[in-house]
């Protein structure tokens, strides 16, 4: 039981919107589509829903070819960034509307509506109209409408983007819980890496109309197979620096050398790109293997418990996330420490050449 995308692609007006993509989404899984605006997330969802027909390829759902099937005949539900509800109906009628269309009995409808409302904490608002609700409640109502009809495929297109930060945090925690109760295939598009991590499940990273990697969310985060995936799945953005391997030594950026041992030993000599995340940069030497980079501080931002450092190393721009409130002079020199164990190495084509050394993080 799964939704199987077999080399589906989409062209529009001679332009490639989506390159041939093959994905298998298993029954009862949460699947996150992560990528920047116009990376192809919405296009991919529209293909899954049947709102657009793929230019090439097939969609197979539970063994049945659904490529040409109308959206009305598929069991799909969709929730958008905008809060889409029927403004003239009460919340109760809004939630009941998909079931009425399916011709369910009043009894069945009533039971399903009340159960779904309870799950989404909408029970006290059932008699109100959507516009009398807060943004978060309106989006809950839209979610309830999508869930109540027990669709086999629920598509959520950046459903929390228009909500306040704190509300987003709350709903984000609730969605996996709701989802666990439903058993449908969930597909959730977002631009935020942190959201993908909180939702868990599987993640497909998208970049310019291509799925760059698909796998268990923490696994894609920790073991990206190419530089683009690493870039898409990092917030703050991943830092990169040129790296040259020559014999048993590797030179990073402005003349910082590390021994090419362990996972680096088997690499061919030549140019590479080293990538590392902001939270792996430190102001002091955390491990014996750490090396120091001379950087200029471009700007710093304090979040209360942590400090973001915007650093210049040669022509490279890095972001560092360090513990505590650090009051460093802007424009001054800072020595930044990095443990080579935290470094990903990508080859000239951007493919992963050497993974980050495992750190006992449970992956």
């Amino acid at each position, binding site marked *: 039981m799964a939704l199987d995308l077999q080399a589906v692609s989409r062209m529009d007006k001679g332009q490639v919107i989506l390159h041939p993509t093959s994905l298998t989404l298993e029954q009862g899984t949460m699947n996150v589509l992560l990528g*920047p*605006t116009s990376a192809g997330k919405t296009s991919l969802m529209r293909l899954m829903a049947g709102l657009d027909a793929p230019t090439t390829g097939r969609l197979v759902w539970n063994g049945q070819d659904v490529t040409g099937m109308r959206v009305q005949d598929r069991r799909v539900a969709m929730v958008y960034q905008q809060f889409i509800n029927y403004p003239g109906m009460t919340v109760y009628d809004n939630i009941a509307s998909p079931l009425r269309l399916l011709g369910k009995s009043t009894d069945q409808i009533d039971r399903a509506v009340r159960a779904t409302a309870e799950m989404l904490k909408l029970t006290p608002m059932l008699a109100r109209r959507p516009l009398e609700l*807060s*943004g978060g409640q309106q989006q809950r109502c839209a979610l309830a409408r999508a869930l109540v009809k027990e669709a086999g495929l629920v598509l959520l297109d950046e459903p929390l983007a228009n909500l*306040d*930060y*704190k*509300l987003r*945090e709350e709903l984000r925690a609730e969605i996996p819980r709701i989802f666990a109760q439903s058993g449908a295939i969930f597909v959730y598009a977002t*631009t*935020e*890496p*942190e959201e993908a*991590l*909180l939702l*868990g499940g599987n993640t497909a990273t998208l970049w310019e109309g291509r799925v760059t990697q698909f796998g268990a969310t*923490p696994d894609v*985060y920790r073991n990206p197979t190419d530089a683009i995936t690493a870039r898409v799945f990092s*917030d*703050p*953005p991943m830092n990169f620096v040129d790296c040259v391997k020559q014999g048993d030594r590797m030179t990073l950026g402005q003349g910082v050398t590390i021994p090419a041992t362990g996972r680096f030993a088997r690499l061919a000599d030549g140019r590479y790109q080293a990538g590392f*995340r*902001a*939270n792996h940069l430190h102001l002091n030497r955390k491990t014996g293997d750490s090396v120091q980079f001379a950087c200029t501080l*471009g*700007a710093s*931002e*304090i*979040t*209360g*418990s942590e400090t*973001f450092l*915007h650093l210049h190393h040669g022509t490279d721009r890095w*972001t560092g*996330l360090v513990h505590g*409130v650090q009051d460093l002079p*802007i424009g001054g020199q800072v020595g930044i420490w990095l443990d080579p164990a935290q470094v990903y190495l990508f080859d000239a084509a951007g493919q992963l050449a050497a993974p980050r050394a495992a*750190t*006992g*993080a*449970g992956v």
Partner: protein
Amino acid sequence: MARITLSNLAHSYYPNPKSEADFALKEMDHVWDDGGAYALLGASGCGKTTLLNIISGLVHPSQGRVLFGDRDVTGAPTAERNIAQVFQFPVVYDTMTVRENLAFPLRNRGMDAAYIQSRVAQIAAMIGMEATLDRKARGLTADAKQKISLGRGMVRQDVNAILFDEPLTVIDPHMKWELRTQLKLLHREFGHTMIYVTHDQTEALTFADKVVVLHDGRVVQMGTPQELFETPEHTFVGYFIGSPGMNLLDATIHGNMAQTAAGPVALAAHYAPQNGRTQIGIRPEYAEMTAGIGLPARVLRIEDVGRHRIIRAEVAGSQISVIAGEGQPVGADLTHVRFDPARVNVYANDWRIKGAV
């Protein structure tokens, strides 16, 4: 540039407000320093937009005065206040080129051509749009348009203040980093007074020297990011700042000991006996799961957010969050939670009380 004084200011959208509840903005007295970077932070409907509109001159306050420097501008229209504003959605003149857009506020004020030319070039370099200066604004992407809006806000050197109304809403996460850094640099370079309205704590904390937290029309705390994080004056600030927010546990306070339903928690200071509801607040960053020290806690689930993990646990019926480092193992032996006494805050009826050290 100017210091901004809000004197005895309050606003109600009703013509004859009867009770305090009728006020969208409750009475406040504040002085904002010349050249400071301020953020107004709060949830939708907390009054932050009302306050911004009062400063920009769009809304006339029901009571009190607004002063720019020594000048009373309460009754002055927007155009006379000499401010710049960047809106939530990009406001650009579609039929003009990027260059014309940036030059527009200067040209309207009759600046000379050579000055406009050099100033526009400077701003274009700042927002990274030198290459597209002669393109029409219409065909550009939303974030390029928003950069133009930011640039147009910055282009005048003599403004009293620059107001930002959730300017990064339409921007992708990666671009947010870039634009925020640029804003920071612009602030450093030109020293304008900046007021930044947002619901996003990360944006507020990273942008501002001083964050003004609004809740229900009231300023609940104004302070540096560090103050808001370490010593939230109100439980709302504790909840709203930080992700996840501060853990709150009901407790009775006896001197330097707080008695919770799950057991006693040590405090770093002595507190006088309190009336009403008393709670202790502790940030998830300052809590730690242990194998036997502290309050008994049951781990409910662990969320992996990449650079750290959030442990959701239950302590005597209340849910708390604990942050654990990326490499730190979370095993079945972790049955208790320990709080750093120096980081525990005490609240009575939602307001923080100070203890004697």
